[in-house]
């Protein structure tokens, strides 16, 4: 039997690339969870034809926090058992607006952290009690490694998610459930389209390849592309007394 992976937030460009990588290169059946999931029918048809895997669509709104506790049961009810969860949804938002508007602030914090935490809380419970090896992949960000004026709201949420995943990894390590934290740099997606000052922008397919490879090698944290580990090492090494005056 083929393993099945659930992709939460399956509409993003990274999710799309991950779906292709998991289905084509590794033969996973998939559950694509997103709002208006019917829009993903062409992707589902494509993956079914080319990779011969089964692809289910799941109507899912990450911000409906009250619905999160039933998520694992709903996935199993609608499509069947699963062993891997990939949490991809996120919201970059507008830092300047968030500084003025609590609505935007909460939307950034809730999407990137709270919604991810409640969804993974339910799915982790299920995977931990399932009695078989499984995994959780969470997409953080290099922005979560240090607070910067240009995007610290997004960074704070992604940084919190990284801490959450770290704790989850600790909790599940002895239960055979592996947790991978992904920290992508700039990826060429609609989320970053039109932003100023981007550099070293990576194609989603490359990021997806890195992520699945890191998961298979049971890595705990992966930067993608790899050089971001060293860029962030440098950025974290700047003393705070100097860093606070920088415009980054």
């Amino acid at each position, binding site marked *: 039997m083929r393993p099945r992976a659930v992709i939460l937030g399956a*509409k993003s*460009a990274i999710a799309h690339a991950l779906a292709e990588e998991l289905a084509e290169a590794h033969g996973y059946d998939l559950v694509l969870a997103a709002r208006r999931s019917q*829009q993903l029918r*062409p992707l589902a*048809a*494509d993956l079914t*034809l*080319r990779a011969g895997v089964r692809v289910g669509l799941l109507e899912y709104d990450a911000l409906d926090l009250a619905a999160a506790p039933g998520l694992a049961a709903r996935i199993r009810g609608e499509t069947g058992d699963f062993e891997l969860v990939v949490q991809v949804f996120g919201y970059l938002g507008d830092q300047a607006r968030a500084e003025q508007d609590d609505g935007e602030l909460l939307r950034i914090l809730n999407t990137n952290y709270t919604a991810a935490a409640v969804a993974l809380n339910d799915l982790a419970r299920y995977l931990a009690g399932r009695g078989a090896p499984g995994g959780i992949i969470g997409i953080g960000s290099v922005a979560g490694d240090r607070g910067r004026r240009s995007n610290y709201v997004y960074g704070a949420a992604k940084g919190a998610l990284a801490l959450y995943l770290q704790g989850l990894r600790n909790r599940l390590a002895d239960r055979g459930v592996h947790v991978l934290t992904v920290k992508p740099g700039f990826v060429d997606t*609609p989320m970053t*389209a039109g932003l100023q000052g981007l550099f070293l922008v990576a194609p989603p397919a490359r990021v997806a390849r890195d992520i699945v490879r890191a998961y298979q090698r049971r890595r705990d944290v992966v930067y993608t592309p790899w050089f971001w580990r060293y860029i962030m090492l440098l950025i974290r090494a700047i003393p705070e007394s100097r860093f606070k005056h920088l415009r980054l």
Partner: protein
Amino acid sequence: MAQRQTSGWGLYPRIAAEVDPVRFPEDLVALVRRQMPLLAQGNCRSYGDGCLAPRVASFLPLNHLLAFDAERGVVHAEAGITLDKLLRFIVPRGWFLPVTPGTKFPTLGGCIAADVHGKNHHREGTFGNYVEALDMVLADGTLLTCSQTEHRDLFEATVGGMGLTGFIYAARLRLRPIRSAYIVLRSLRTESFAETCRVFAETHDQYPYSVAWVDCLARGAHLGRSIVMLGEHEAADAAAPEGSLRVHARGALDIPCYLPAWTLNPLTVRAFNAAYYRRHWRRDARARVHYDPFFYPLDIVTNWNRIYGRSGFLQYQFVVPFRDGEAVMAEVLARIAARGTASFLAVLKTMGPQSGGMLSFPLPGYTLALDISRRDAGIVAFLRELNGIVAASGGRNYLAKDTILERAQFEPMYPRLDEFRAAKRRYDPHCLFRSLQSDRLGLT
């Protein structure tokens, strides 16, 4: 939405454009509802300005296979899928593209919009002949499926219509069954243009694929000397019936940056052409080659267009009818040789009957395609002179490769232009869909 530098494969012209990536068919409806001029853009493999506009909808994310009928060999796919991705799916299943251009990187939508042809045009016609239906999003947001039998005017205006009639969301394409991914190739060396024409005529019915590489710098008695390549799909490989449906590999080389100006000059090109010609030292050679080097020899070098440097190049392709064709072609070749215009690639082929699309390029005759560096001063004026000769003989230029055609030269070349304009008025009365080329040619 993002501002990007965009250009066709010839790297000229290059313009900044607002690029909207289209993820879902609903996005297409939302885009036309804004009622601002725009153009569908695929992988920008057409050479000139036919794929350029200040606002474009990028179809690259719309690249999904929707359905496959394994009995009939019909694939239904979104327009942004590349031939590369299609081939990876169909070849192992024993099917091939019914018609293929010389690169596997254009999108399905682009192949329909340019109604591309291949080495088998003399026998099989254009790409559009194998399109069973088009799912379109029109200027007013309507979704409509058209074909040879349904909304035929829209279908015939869209096949070869350079994206000007509406968005092609998806298409059904009829494939060709194959037993092997290999081509049985025969190469004939000819000493003159007359001999090349004779070989084409003699082998017309024998081989589904034929093309000639012409040494454009050879003059006098050697004018038009060529290597004529003839091919057909290999019949089943008895030894390895499964293994012979091997799909192509990724390109092996890349040109990572623009090459400096001096690399291509008449001297280096002449040396290359002479060496290439001599390499075929046998007058009649046979070989078995994979479809990839046979149909897509340049795809092995990613970004090969950069060898022409940052200023780019012009691709020039025209067709002249068989009647006087030999004489007209000889005249054109003589002018090119006399000018010493450096062309790496000069490709000659015969074309068969005209087909469906109102603005489709092919007509029965000889077609010649040239790559010419833009550093050659005065090249535009020279090519416009050639346009005059082509037009006078009843021939025409290929819009997918055009950057320089003038409206007055263009109009008499395409006798179904009025029909096209009528369809355009009907389906896109406010000229929402337009390109730099359509503005230049007075189509919008």
